[in-house]
């Protein structure tokens, strides 16, 4: 009888322990955030005739990230930009940019970033990942500044900013079509995420 009671106590302890452990794990699980299109932007600038800068933005962007404060290397970041949504405040130029000589948006409808490793740096994260544009994928490292949390109307929000410089010719853009617009483009990403 006493042996049976001991066994039941042991089983109860195991169940309670498992539940507590699981709860503990849940407490440290990464927070999932969705890209807030209203309070975020992906813009770019490129040299014109090597004397000035042309600015533009992509109006349709989607993405998500998960932040693991306890184990930051497990944090992940993903961003998908619709190339067709390019907007330089000039309709004719936007149409031209959608053509196969530039973004070729019918063939390559999206520009994507998917992280492969993350590490904490002072004031943010250093995120390395695959950046795919114009059908070519290259490894890039983004320095994400920010990460401060804010509770707004019961929704937790986190924001990051980063700047990325790349050469269009590295992504298969035809050098002959680069013309008066410089080869180098600077992409500026300001991303605010809402916890799911």
């Amino acid at each position: 009888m006493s042996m049976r009671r001991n066994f039941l106590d042991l089983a109860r302890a195991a169940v309670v322990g498992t539940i507590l452990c699981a709860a503990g794990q849940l407490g440290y699980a990464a927070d999932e955030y969705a890209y807030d299109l209203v309070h975020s932007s992906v813009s770019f600038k490129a040299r014109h005739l090597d004397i000035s800068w042309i600015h533009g933005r992509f109006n349709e962007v989607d993405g998500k990230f998960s932040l693991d404060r306890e184990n930051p290397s497990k944090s992940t970041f993903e961003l998908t930009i619709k190339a067709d949504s390019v907007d330089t405040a000039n309709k004719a130029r936007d149409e031209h940019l959608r053509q196969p000589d530039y973004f070729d948006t019918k063939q390559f409808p999206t520009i994507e970033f998917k992280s492969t490793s993350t590490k904490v740096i002072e004031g943010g994260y250093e995120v390395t990942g695959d950046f795919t544009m114009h059908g070519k994928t290259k490894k890039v490292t983004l320095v994400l500044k920010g990460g401060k949390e804010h509770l707004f109307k019961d929704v937790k929000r986190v924001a990051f900013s980063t700047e990325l410089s790349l050469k269009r010719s590295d992504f298969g853009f035809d050098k002959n079509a680069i013309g008066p617009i410089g080869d180098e483009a600077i992409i500026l990403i300001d991303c605010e995420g809402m916890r799911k």
Partner: protein
Amino acid sequence: MPDPVLYLQAMGFAAFASAMLIFIVVGAVHPVTLKWMNVASVLAIGLGLVVGYGLLAFRLNWPPANGLDRLLLVIVPATLVLELIVSCWSEPRRIAWLMRFFLAAAIPRILLPGSVHLDGFHGEARLLLKPVAELIACSVLLAGTWRMLSWLSERSGGCSIPLALALTIQCTGLTIMMAGYIKGGAATFPLTATLVATTLAASLAVKRSSITATIGIGMVELFGILFIGRFFGRISTGFALTMLVTPLLCWVSEFPTLRHRKPWLVGAVRLLLVAIPLIAALVLAKLDFDRAMTPLLGQLINV
């Protein structure tokens, strides 16, 4: 940026290479039969294209990444090989046309992979209907125009049919350029030059013959450029259809009043008839280009 001097150089060298190869074959082979001339024409076009694109420093990707890569690296070589095979073993003709129709059926599908136009292939069945219908319609149009033009060439021969085809290809290229797709338009310069040079050189060697190989290659090139311009560039369906069927205006010369006239007159009428819609298309494209470029260049419309 467009470079007219480079385009002219590429055209000149491509034409020279094609014509020289024809003359070498004419000098080396006796007698020069129609079969030999078809084989020489295919090789001359192939050589001219390699020279022309080499001079244009066209950067193409392998494996092909976009429509133009697929046209120049898969479809044009496949057509050259097909026409070479057909030229060497021309009998039975039904088999030759079966092979051509098979290629015509495959071309639209080869040009579109990975693009937004085939998104329906990965979705629900009802979404499949539109792309499938478009692909079938394109294949039927290509096969139909190809057969009709080859038939006319076999009926009455002459060099005006491939020249009309070359004229249409060049106007299509200029229109695509003016619509904003510079590389797509530039791709037509070597095509036109080799087609014209091969046709003229071959016509000097074999009088009043029908070199069907040049018709086939020209027709596939015209279709390919129009297809890319329509599905990846900004040219409209109406414009693409008009350009595709324009060479068929050569059939007007088969009216009894024209059919038995002197060959040069028949040829001139054909070229004139084809040139009229092409000039109209170019004028419209230029007007569109001016409208689009004015804000792009930052000029003030109302000062």
